């Protein structure tokens, strides 16, 4: 499955489709879920609020990270 993440996607959708994104973003100081629930904003808004200077660069890194994790999961099957 292809990884398709953009800044205008809602955080709710990202958390549902790509739960692995949560730990990657959390380590970068961006928390998608609080009290167990996803925030209602878009990813772009969240990155802006958390002071991420290069949001486009971060989501490229995120997509790369997720591809790796999915490949690893595939290999271990």
């Amino acid at each position: 499955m292809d990884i398709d993440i953009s800044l205008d996607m809602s955080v709710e959708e990202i958390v549902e489709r790509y739960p692995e994104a949560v730990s990657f973003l959390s380590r970068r100081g961006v928390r998608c879920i609080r009290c167990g629930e996803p925030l209602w904003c878009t990813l772009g808004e969240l990155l802006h609020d958390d002071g991420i200077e290069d949001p486009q660069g971060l989501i490229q890194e995120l997509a790369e990270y997720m591809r790796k994790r999915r490949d690893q999961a595939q290999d271990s099957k």
Partner: protein
Amino acid sequence: MKGILKKLNIKEVNAGACSGQGAWYEDPEGQELISHDPSTGEPIAKVIQATDKTYEKVIEQAVLAFKTWRMAPAPKRGQVVRDLGQALRESKEPLGELVTLEMGKIRAEGLGEVQEMIDICDFAVGLSRQLYGLTMHSERPAHRMFEQWHPQGAIGVISAFNFPVAVWSWNAAIAAACGDTTVWKPSSDTPLTAIAVQHICNTVMADHGLQGIFNLAIGRGAVVGERMINDERLPLISFTGSTQMGRRVSEAVARRFGRTILELGGNNAIIVAGDADLEMAVRTILFGAVGTAGQRCTSTRRIIMHRSIAQELTGRIIKAYEQVKIGNPMEEGTLMGPLVTKAAVEDMMAALEIAKNQGGEVIYGGRRLEDLGQQFVEPTIVKMPSQTEIVHNETFAPILYLLEYEDIEEAIRLHNEVPQGLSSAIFTTNLLTAEKFLSHEGSDCGIANVNIGTSGAEIGGAFGGEKETGGGRESGSDAWKGYMRRQTNTINWSKELPLAQGIKFGD
């Protein structure tokens, strides 16, 4: 599973918007939401989420119903709430089991949650005859001054996954007794329990020839949630969730001069004094930190223990953790089920990594339990060298941070240092220490307990917290006042027109 769903009228595909019996609204453009069993990852059933069109129908009904509902005498409204409580008694077992099935808390907790709904209905029935206003002595002769409490309108209730039905009932039962109607947006992780409750409400409303008192609109926060918080037809929004979302809700509602009841994040600690009964403390810590897999607003997240007992208490807590049976939450004997979503597991793992980077030592647990399922984890204990940044944050998972203190002043300072202020507790056998903790130089939380833990509140008390927890109060005591509007009245029963403060004007 099928038996539970059948008893509660849950179908394979369910409409996600409703105003009463025969008034389920489904828009073909509505997006499908699949509810999963967190234990197995298997789908349970689907919901067609509310769209702008169906949301509009729900709100119109709620606003319309308010016009007649507010005119029913409060004790008559109480009779409807009494019948709701009775209907919940009859559905306690399947509804409690659906809570377990859909969000993963153990069966005993699922049933306990429905009992809480029943309890708040009982409370609201009594309340319906006690919506008292004060009478004040007027400074003007032959005048009478008093205050009345009037219903407010259609009220928005936005609840979270962790108490998928109880939190709704804290709001809806009280609001109904107060003469308000409610529109409920449940968590997208637990839509089916909301549909089950709506079916129960529909039967009760129909028995009384009513519609639109209890309403439902299931949908994403970015869609239905945003509509609700910006909707001027909802004078009050009761929101349960995170501090970050609470800030967004609060700002949006305040912009239109609406009111909010906010029940936001907690970061609850237990102080264990050197003279504490450790046996009691350990049992309490276990329930507080591991119960509901650490996913309660009131879960115990920090232990602040006196240096003199730290080693012994740590050893005893670890022993207690070793006894925790993790697994299928429906099974007798299981003490901890799965986390609610895969994302919650990711969030927990990231928090542990950060805690380790900040000097924390994982002394128990810390791993995923993938043999049991993708959303099972070990309850985890982390010994921290100090109260670092990660400890100031609430992670909604079974992570317990251990901290030590030298004197009670240091303990209280550590306790109050975090931005949240929901629930707190101290274990001590010293009266002076206990009183200090409860005093205004002690705990800064909305809930402060002695020799009982941070979680497991009763419905009779007002529930809520201070600081970033939001300041709202729900449930018992005088929390009902939040659901009504206060009106001050003065009646002049003389033939004079005296002004207040002795002012003479045009005499």
